[in-house]
């Protein structure tokens, strides 16, 4: 069975790339889903989606932080 949080993490992660404010939600969903999948002893699937969502969230957050930091430092 597929973990619904994995799909949510992927969607939020993809959206976090253009909309950085969604990144924390993608990261939280990705971590939460990976934990559930790991704890399910193979009953739940979706590791790829959850992992991708987590990574996309981290990239989105990094871009958001780097952009904001640049603005604060360079201005």
């Amino acid at each position, binding site marked *: 069975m597929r973990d619904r949080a994995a799909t949510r993490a*992927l969607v939020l*992660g*993809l959206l976090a*790339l*253009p*909309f*950085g404010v969604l990144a924390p939600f993608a990261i939280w969903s990705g971590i939460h889903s990976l934990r559930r999948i790991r704890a399910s002893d193979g009953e739940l699937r979706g590791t*790829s*989606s959850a992992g*991708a969502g987590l*990574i*996309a969230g981290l*990239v*989105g957050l*990094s*871009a*958001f932080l*780097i*952009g*904001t930091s*640049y*603005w604060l430092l*360079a*201005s």
Partner: protein
Amino acid sequence: MIGRVLITLLVVVVALISYPGALLVSLATRLTPAPNAPAGREGALPWLHVAHPADGRPYIADDQGRIVMLHGAIPAGLIDFWTGPDQSQPNVPPLYPIDPTEYDGGQCPANSSLSRYPPFCRADVEAMATLGFNSIRLPISWSLLEPARGHFSQTYIARVAQVIEWAKSAQMYVIIDMHQNGYSRYVGPGDDVNLSYLSGAPRWATITDGFPSRVFLGQRELNPAVFEAASNFWYDRAGIQDEYIAAVALIAQRFKDESVVAGYSIFNEPWPGWNLPPGFEDLLLFPFYRRVIDAITGVRDGTPCWSGFFMPAPCGYRDLGVRDQRHLIFLDTGLLREVTDFPTHLGLPVSSYPNLVLALHTYTHEYTFDKLVGQTPDQATYPWGGYDQSYVFADREARAMDAALFVAEVGAPPQWDYLMTANQLTEQDRQRIGFAFWTWKENGGKDSWGIFNPPGSPPESSGCLRAARERLLARVFPKASGDRNLRYSYDPGTGGFALAATGQTGAPATMVYIPPEVRGEVSTGGGVHGSIATNTDGSRVVTALPTGGPFRVSVAPQSLALTGC
């Protein structure tokens, strides 16, 4: 396994075309060496460029490295606003001739009340110079430049060139402004739509996809057809953005060797359409600016990409062969910044091309939140930082983008001049920023925004000069100074002026312009040798040559000799 690869690929592609990719390309422009401007012909006026001090905001400078203040107005006579008595006929040709021969020898077509604006003629340029203006922001319309796809109007380009020749005679710079308001008049008529407020794209580049043309809340941009047409432009639907870039390149090619042209304003008051800030600015607008810069200057900041349909943020543009690296490029902020008076995006670097100018439109209390909720300027509760707010943030935006700063539009209803215009001009002096005043002349009633009263009877192009505006706009100011950190202030109530600067012996002179309206005695002090020249129109120019250390130039208060009504 395939699913894993597809998901990875999806994340990578979305990352590359959105903020992570845009950020990488933007930051890379800061690491890319600026191109060396090729030596070109000397011009009728000194070539302008943007100087980049290590410890301050970039500024517009002349060939001696002096900070240059551009003061000017915006004539609307070359804009393709709809005119006429019947809005069900939206495709009417321009009311005033675009053939320059109709304006030769001081001729001026008769003004018409069917147009919101009078024609722009040679006498107007001379009148601008009399007010002490040293620049014109000249709005032009894409719809007249490229009326049919791929077919450019040489007549219209000749008309632009004619105005530039007039400006050359008056020793004034011209900023060529690719103007638009509400995307295009070809979005069509509809409920509460006033086509005479719309201009910009030609009919063939106005793709509304059947969305109705209908204005909401009395704001011309709040129109579904305008939303859709603007969005289609940003998404390069049917390659219309490519056509626009080609149109800008054509203008740049035509005036490549003309120093009277200070530069190009790429897109006036960009409206996001269906897109939201900050993504609109960071992922669509400023990447579009980068592509135009790539195309006309030959710098290669964006990544190689396709063209002809949607180009994501990292995409650059091919060199269109113009290689114009001597003109300023003015970048308007997104239109919503006029509502917020603070930045609506991250302010990332745009290009390695050094001559960039962030172009601000300052309409505090006219388009800001307070006005939208019905407050009057004298009782407004926003902006919380007052008139200062927009400028303080703009200073930071410009530094982050490594661009100079210029107020490309400022204006107000005449009855609020004592508050709005006066405060805006004071802020600009404080921040050492030049301005272009909207608008030069306007028909209509007493509330029209022109510097002159509307004409008493057609076909006059205007009534008399508004004395309140003459008082504010014909001001003492440093046209150029060797000290970029100079301080100056002008009191339009008394005509008093004070400037404090510093300069080493042999440093370039500070040139202070004093309009004929200001009659006070000039004095200089400190490390400076001052001389005063009086022009035939009664204006004076103080040349302050530093002899070492701090110096000052002042004009004593004395009642103004206003000529207006």
